[in-house]
């Protein structure tokens, strides 16, 4: 399984979940940004599966492609960015019957076409980091939630407002009847993030992308929002892709974790494996570099050497090798490792664990 050399290598080893449980499959996704100073290779062949009804954490340093992955799946990458290669398959399920109704390749759809527009908001939606910049300052909270409801469900204004109030109430917003008439600037950070979540959940999507949803919030508000997301996830069996660099939040929220580095997935595993048995040197160094609250210890932090290389440059071999303490000269700086299975529900892209070479390398 780990030593195949054909183009099917990636396909056969990337999946750590049974096919019937998968809601989203991403294969060999390349998203580039064509800027004046060169081509930024934001995604360089991203492969992963997202299991249905689970919370998948996506971690990595800034610039590793976490947010671009989410935007690519939602087909919200705008110029000068472009998906240049790859497939994104969404397995649409009938909510009541729980049976598969459609298999949609999102990369084949027109980004602003009717099919994609009917999926965005209804089947997939997104919560952004800074609610102040992602809510429209000139419309009331109610208007913004109602717009999504009216767009995807055949209801009139009165009914839409009723639903908006119900949703706001459901996310623990105090005085939802007043809040629908408020503008974003009239709310506090925590309330705005609740409004943002209500907006994202207004059509009960099957996949929710949460891009650093609590990074701008205080710990006590963060705890409230995380609690809310956990509760909603369990109630409507939503799949959440949780993008964050806060490993504490990941540990508390996620079932699985995808670790990204320079536009590639370097490790995917269960939450327990990532924290207690990380394989990729990048994952373990990331864990060693953060202060662990409640560890009783004041030992020195071990930062990862150097910085994330800029996406314009091209690195030969494994993209992490210049910063890796376990770099093997002649191997890691020459070939790109392939993603291979290392036990149940655990894949890693590193020559320490397998000789597999990435075959579908970027040009």
């Amino acid at each position, binding site marked *: 399984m780990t030593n195949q050399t054909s183009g099917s290598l990636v396909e056969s080893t990337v999946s750590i979940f049974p096919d019937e449980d998968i809601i989203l499959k991403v294969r060999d996704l390349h998203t580039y940004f064509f800027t004046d100073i060169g081509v930024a290779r934001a995604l360089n062949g991203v492969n992963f599966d997202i299991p249905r009804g689970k919370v998948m954490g996506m971690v990595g340093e800034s610039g590793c492609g976490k947010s671009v992955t989410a935007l690519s799946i939602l087909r919200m990458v705008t110029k000068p960015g472009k998906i240049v290669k790859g497939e994104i398959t969404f397995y649409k399920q009938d909510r009541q019957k729980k049976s598969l109704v459609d298999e949609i390749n999102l990369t084949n759809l027109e980004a602003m076409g009717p099919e994609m527009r009917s999926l965005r908001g209804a089947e997939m939606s997104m919560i952004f980091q800074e609610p102040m910049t992602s809510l429209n300052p000139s419309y009331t909270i109610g208007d913004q939630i109602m717009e999504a409801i009216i767009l995807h469900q055949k209801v009139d204004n009165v009914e839409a407002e009723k639903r908006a109030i119900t949703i706001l109430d459901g996310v623990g917003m105090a005085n939802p009847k007043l809040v629908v008439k408020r503008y974003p600037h009239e709310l506090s950070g925590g309330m705005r993030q609740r409004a943002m979540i209500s907006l994202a959940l207004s059509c009960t999507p099957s996949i929710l992308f949460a891009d650093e949803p609590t990074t701008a919030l205080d710990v006590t508000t963060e*705890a*409230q929002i995380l609690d809310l997301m956990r509760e909603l996830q369990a109630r409507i069996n939503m799949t959440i892709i949780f993008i964050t660099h806060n490993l504490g*939040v990941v*540990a508390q929220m996620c079932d699985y974790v995808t670790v990204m580095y320079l536009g590639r997935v370097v490790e995917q595993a269960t939450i327990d494996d990532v924290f207690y048995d990380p394989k990729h040197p990048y994952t373990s160094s990331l864990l060693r570099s953060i202060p662990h*609250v409640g560890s009783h210890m004041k030992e020195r932090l071990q930062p990862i050497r150097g910085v994330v290389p800029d996406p314009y440059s091209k690195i030969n071999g494994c993209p992490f090798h210049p910063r890796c303490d376990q770099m093997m000269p002649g191997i890691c700086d020459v070939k790109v490792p392939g993603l291979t299975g290392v036990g149940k529900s655990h894949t890693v892209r590193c020559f320490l664990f397998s000789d597999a070479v990435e075959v579908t390398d970027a040009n």
Partner: protein
Amino acid sequence: MPIDISHLNKDDLLLEVNDLKKHFPIRRGTIRRSTGLVKAVDGVNLFVKKGETLGLVGESGCGKTTAGRTIIRLLNPTGGEIRFNDPKLGWVNLENLDRKGLSAVRPHMQIIFQDPFSSLDPRMTVERIIAEPLVINNIARGAELHDRITEMMRTVGMRPEFRSRYPHAFSGGQRQRIGIARALALNPKLVICDEPVSALDVSIQAQVLNLLEDLQRDLDLTYIFVAHDLSVVEHISDRVAVMYVGRLVEVADTETLYYHPKHPYTEALMAAVPKPDPRRRDRPIKLPGEVASPANPPSGCYFHPRCRYAKDICSKETPELLEVEPLHYSACHFSTELKLRGVIG
């Protein structure tokens, strides 16, 4: 009421703050009439020992940044007393010091700002940025200035050949190093670190935190470390002060405060920190509502509307910050009775 520090050796202290207040007027209407006060800092009492790191934590809007800036007179206090143990002048009262007086003590008190992108002038080279405090204070010029800049850049782990570059050519972590070099150029004693790592990526955070620790050891610095990230504060601080709506609610050494808190707000904060351990998924204590407004704080104890232990007295009488155990200060009517949970448990 100032806290009693008579049992401490005055020579070991670097800073003493008594009943510090900073109120901002709320202005409305065309003539900008003052219609109220935002009591950002409202009676802060604390002391800082030489060579220690005092963490100052609290939620946004609690006044921790304002407190830090008022202490070094970047803002003028509305009331209270700030006493600084200057290495040359001895104990100096800062609260009413004029421009000239301030310029004598300022070299010994510096600040590192949160955002390395907005705290450096984009039109100045690294060299000029680090030189500025040295030139203003007439400390060095010519070849001496050049050498001092080289030395500072080496101290913070930057290559001196980058001296003629502009801030935009550097990454966030590198820029924060420039900010640190500028703050340390005058050999200060007290450094206010105002969220110095919160704008940085996790791996860069570790580099900067290590640098701050090394510098403290090598240059004999005292830090007031203002931050909202409780894991960073636990890592770097010797003692921690928790602030809520303009006041300190608890001060103790880090270990005691994190594992044996005496104030319900500290308990709730500790419970809310997401622990980086999937095998420890405890449900946080629900802290209802939001931080009270410093323009219109509740009666009595400012925390009582959100406190799960609140009794009648809490809405009527404001508790003082008292020494409930040796060097453990808490402002709660029930500090000695409550059995509170720390960061674990």
